[in-house]
């Protein structure tokens, strides 16, 4: 139970719920996918098998249509794009099926709730960490797909934060399209031209962690934190391998995207919406706040803690609960 | 007779081969005895090439047996076994266009040096081989750069150099000029003396009498007769092929021009391009003019220029007073030029399209309004052409790819006739066409000429040229002689080869 008013109508809280994933080739979404059935059980939701849109926004619209044709009474969607989801939302609205958006806030359209940790906040946290620990010099951000809203928000937030708060830092950029080999090749190249690089921000630890460490290792630049010549690395995702790397001192910090909470509260809110409940801005019972976005949409801003050496063993972190 | 019969070198019995609904061979039989030169004749589509592909292991028969020296034929996948047994020049070009001439000659049997190919030896051997055939091509040249004749010679040279005791030649002479044919026959005789056995296919029956001892006739996919050539005079042979009594008539000549005062339709002046120089020629309405010359004389290029496929350096050509737009095929078509190109595989046919499509390719705009191609009109026009040219096909909807060689050639002729041209330019129009069909093909030329069409026959086939009112001879790009009808063979051959004396 969170901050919710019990209202009339809805679908009475029963019926099947469709869960649509944006992609499955990232460890983060794979974890989310694994959490869905578990959380469905604990939240008492009759969730269908998850559907994977395979990074294609048009496919996602088709998937929504397919689920609606099957008679789902609620939908949990992780939109691939904040704008290119509207057509899907409209379809659902026409059928009176409530939708909860996970990870990406739609620009427009009707959703019962957005469950997300702020992508822009990821970029800012990484920037703040690097700014405080590196101070000045060259830092690299290994970006995602520029055509994806997640990658875009993280990139722009990081860039803007550096410009505003840490003008001493010079940002070098690697557009790596969520591809590990692209990340490795371009980081390798940049390190040749800029041997003085002091910090790296990985926008997706699941994809970029291994190639970054591997490239640094093969160039003899992988030094433990605290030793001379260490390159500060801030990652993003919160998968177990990042935690291990933090424990080893190879990576300084990572922003933990709450995969478990995404699954849990996505299903929680959709059930509530199906029961006809509505929500108000304000603090929740799970250490987050519901805010009203400019478009009028409500968003439950889940905490995305920065994990460093100090809190890496915190059992509450989802990365410590999976294999 | 039975007791003394030697073991046949190659023997096929009761061979059946079907392609979908077509039965290409219903009763294929042949017995080739060691040391003989065996001719295989039959009309276009009789199944000769099909029998060859079965005899050379290119395709498995649907039924029937093939034996060599009394032993069963090798398995289809045993390519080495087949290569040891039989060599073949196929009717379709079987060269690899991207490889050099030298490699094509020694494909998969290149001389080795320490396990790798010895290019030097390969080149030397290729040069030697080409020299024996007097083929003037660079052994390093790509096969795709060869002319049709050169390509054919390279394949013949390859087959005859393989060292097989049994050699199959499927219409080797269809693309060669007379000197090249003579050279082939000389080689064949030499090999015969050393014990090589030949199976020889040709539509030039005089060649059968010249080099073969035995002949087998196929008709309508069935074996008809096998006999010593001496026992089958030409008329009987043609009858066996055609299945009816028929005069041969191949030597009938055309007589003089029908109307010496007919207006000049084609007037070519000072035409000059790379392979020919300062050509001047005229063709009157209703006149058939032959253009002879060896393969290197430039005659085919001249024909292609008139068809709009090439742009000359200088000169003009007027058709009924209008300048032909060189380099513009469509313009030339509109001006009234019908064209049979030299090589049906290259420029003549779209193999995947149907007989009807190919035959009407030049007149697509005329089969309906607004560019629509009306199926009924295409069918009617095609049906008419198929009948007139006696094309053996399942129907207008059969892909040309599936036709036999000679029938495919007739489709090219159909395409040229479809546009009802005022000038017909025919390059080697009867290549690969059987004797009876040749008659009907040339009869269509006669029809056209009666309707006032001017005809230019570019060929070195004496049968084709004999029908011409006059024959011009091109030598190294210049017109060097003109022979009015009634010339004698040796005169013309001498002129073509550049050894006559005026």
């Amino acid at each position, binding site marked *: 139970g969170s901050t919710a008013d019990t209202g009339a109508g809805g679908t009475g809280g029963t019926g099947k719920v469709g869960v649509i994933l944006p992609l499955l080739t990232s460890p983060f979404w794979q974890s989310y*996918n694994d959490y869905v059935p578990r959380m469905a059980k604990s939240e008492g939701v009759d969730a269908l098998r*998850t*559907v*994977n849109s395979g990074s*294609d926004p*048009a496919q996602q*619209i*088709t998937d929504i249509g*397919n689920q609606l*044709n*099957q*008679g789902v009474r609620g939908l949990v969607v992780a939109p*691939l*794009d904040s*704008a*290119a*989801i*509207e*057509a899907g939302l409209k379809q659902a609205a026409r059928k009176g099926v409530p939708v909860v958006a996970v990870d990406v806030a739609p*620009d427009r359209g009707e959703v019962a709730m957005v469950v997300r940790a702020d992508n822009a906040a990821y970029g800012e946290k990484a920037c703040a960490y690097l700014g405080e620990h590196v101070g000045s010099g060259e830092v690299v951000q290994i970006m995602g*797909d*520029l*055509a994806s*809203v997640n990658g*875009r928000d993280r990139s722009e937030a990081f860039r803007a934060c550096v410009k505003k708060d840490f003008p001493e830092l010079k940002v070098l950029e690697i557009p790596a399209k969520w591809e590990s080999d692209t990340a490795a090749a371009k980081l390798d190249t940049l390190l040749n031209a800029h041997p003085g690089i002091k910090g790296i921000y990985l926008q997706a630890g699941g994809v970029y962690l291994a190639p970054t460490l591997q490239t640094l290792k093969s160039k003899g630049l992988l030094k433990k934190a605290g030793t001379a010549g260490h390159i500060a690395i801030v990652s993003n995702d919160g998968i177990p391998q990042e935690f291990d790397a933090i424990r080893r001192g190879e990576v300084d910090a990572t922003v933990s995207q709450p995969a478990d909470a995404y699954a849990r509260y996505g299903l929680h809110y959709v059930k509530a919406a199906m029961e006809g409940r509505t929500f108000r801005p304000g603090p929740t019972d799970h250490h987050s706040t519901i805010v009203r976005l400019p478009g009028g949409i409500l968003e439950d801003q889940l905490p995305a803690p920065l994990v460093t050496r100090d809190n890496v063993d915190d059992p509450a972190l989802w990365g410590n609960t999976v294999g | *007779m039975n007791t003394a*019969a030697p073991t046949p070198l190659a023997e096929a019995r009761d061979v059946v081969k079907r392609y*979908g*609904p*077509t*039965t290409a061979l*219903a009763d294929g039989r042949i*017995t080739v005895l060691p040391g003989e030169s065996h001719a295989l004749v039959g009309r276009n589509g009789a199944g000769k090439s099909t029998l060859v592909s079965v005899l050379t292991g290119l395709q498995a028969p649907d039924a029937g047996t093939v034996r060599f020296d009394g032993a069963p034929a090798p398995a289809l996948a045993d390519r080495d076994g087949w290569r040891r047994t039989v060599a073949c020049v196929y009717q379709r070009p079987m060269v690899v266009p991207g490889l050099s001439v030298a490699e094509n000659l020694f494909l998969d049997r290149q001389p080795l040096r320490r396990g790798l190919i010895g290019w030097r030896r390969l080149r030397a051997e290729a040069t030697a081989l080409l020299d024996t055939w007097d083929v003037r091509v660079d052994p390093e040249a790509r096969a795709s750069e060869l002319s049709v004749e050169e390509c054919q010679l390279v394949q013949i040279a390859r087959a005859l150099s393989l060292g097989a005791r049994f050699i199959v030649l499927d219409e080797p002479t269809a693309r060669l000029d007379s000197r090249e044919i003579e050279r082939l026959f000389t080689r064949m005789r030499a090999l015969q003396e050393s014990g090589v056995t030949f199976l020889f296919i040709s539509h030039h029956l005089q060649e059968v009498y010249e080099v073969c001892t*035995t002949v087998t006739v196929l*008709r*309508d996919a*069935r*074996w008809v*007769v*096998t*006999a*010593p050539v001496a*026992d089958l005079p030409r008329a009987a042979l043609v009858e066996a092929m055609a299945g009816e009594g028929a005069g041969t008539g191949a030597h009938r000549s055309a007589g003089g021009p029908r109307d010496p005062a007919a207006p000049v339709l084609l007037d070519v002046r000072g035409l000059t391009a790379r392979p020919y120089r300062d050509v001047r020629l005229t063709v009157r309405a209703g006149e058939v003019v032959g253009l002879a010359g060896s393969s290197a004389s430039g005659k085919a290029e001249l024909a292609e220029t008139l*068809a709009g496929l090439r742009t000359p350096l200088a000169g003009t050509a007027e058709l009924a007073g209008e300048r032909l737009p060189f380099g513009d*095929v*469509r313009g030339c078509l509109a001006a009234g030029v019908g064209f049979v*190109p030299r090589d049906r595989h290259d*420029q*003549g046919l*779209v193999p995947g399209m149907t007989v009807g*499509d190919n035959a009407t*390719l030049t007149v*697509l*705009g005329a*089969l309906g309004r607004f560019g*629509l*191609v*009306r199926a009924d009109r295409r069918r009617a026009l095609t049906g008419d052409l198929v009948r007139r040219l006696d094309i053996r096909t*399942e129907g207008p*909807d059969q892909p040309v790819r599936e036709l036999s060689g000679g029938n495919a050639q007739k489709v090219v002729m159909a395409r040229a006739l479809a546009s009802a041209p005022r000038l017909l330019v025919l390059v080697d129009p009867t290549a690969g066409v059987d004797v009876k069909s040749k008659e009907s093909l040339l009869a269509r030329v006669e029809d056209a000429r009666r309707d006032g069409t001017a005809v230019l026959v570019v060929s070195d086939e004496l049968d084709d040229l004999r029908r011409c009112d006059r024959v011009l001879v091109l030598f190294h790009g210049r017109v060097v002689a003109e022979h009015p009808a009634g010339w004698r063979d040796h005169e013309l051959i001498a002129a073509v080869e550049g050894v006559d004396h005026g």
Partner: protein
Amino acid sequence: MADTRAPAQPPATRRAPGQARALLIRRARELALLPALLAVLVIGGFVNDAFLTERNLVSVLGSSAALAMVVLAESLVLITGKFDLSLESVVGIAPALGALLVLPAAKAGFGTELPTALALSAVLLVGAAVGLLNGLLVVKLRLNAFIVTLAMLIVLRGVLVGATRGKTLFDMPDAFFAMATGTVLRVPVSVWVAAAAFALAGLTLRHHRVGRALYAIGGNPEAARAAGIRVDRVMLGVFVTAGVLAAVGGIMRTGYVGAINANQGQNMIFTVFAAAVIGGISLDGGRGTMSGALTGVLLLGTVDNLLTQAQVQAYWIQAIYGGIILLALMLARLTTGRAQD
């Protein structure tokens, strides 16, 4: 020696009866996929009650319309014996440029705020221009079509990301969405448009001289030229037409999705080739029909829909999808007995 003579028997009558049957077989080949498509429909009906409902089938059609347009475009190019990989990027760049022309600067547009009709014409124009450029490089400069259009694809993908700065474009005038949102007889306009385009293309290919010219060029360009077909001009025309059709496909996709993502169309070309080739369009040129290509599109759309409805595990759905395509190919191979190379 054998002067034995065969008894005079009538020549095997090979023509009359064979003809009709041969024609039938040839027609059947064009629709080789039909058995596979029917099988999927029947299985679908058993697997899920919702599958064979009108609503669901309309969904399949609506989601396939944009793909169908691009498959149509690609088929025309393939029949002519060429390639055009850049069509997938036209699906993105053409509507995106149109949208940028109409959107105010505040919404990431160029700020030109052209009238909608002009902007929509610009979409088609962009498609035509890309096609023309490809065509000129291939026809006039004689560059390899595959690699030219691959490079073009990379360039255009880049231009799309560059021009939109990676942002998704939305809030275009309703006309941009009308094809997917408007319906006639409960079926989206885009489906009717795609159907009309296929019918027109099919008729042209079969019954118009331009269509016949495409097959001739694809089958043997030299022979086509010798028969008076203006090969270069027709080929240019095909590239331009394909560009325009892909641009229309782009508008359909825009309407379907409700916005233009900076990677709209990306990776679509794989599906396009799959549909075309499964549908019997030959990569060597000169062969294939519109009805075949259409069955290819429908098969892929139906299988996709079916798999979603069948509740296959998300992890395995792709593998199964590929497996079904393979099976369909084999089925087509067996039912027509035709080698596909």
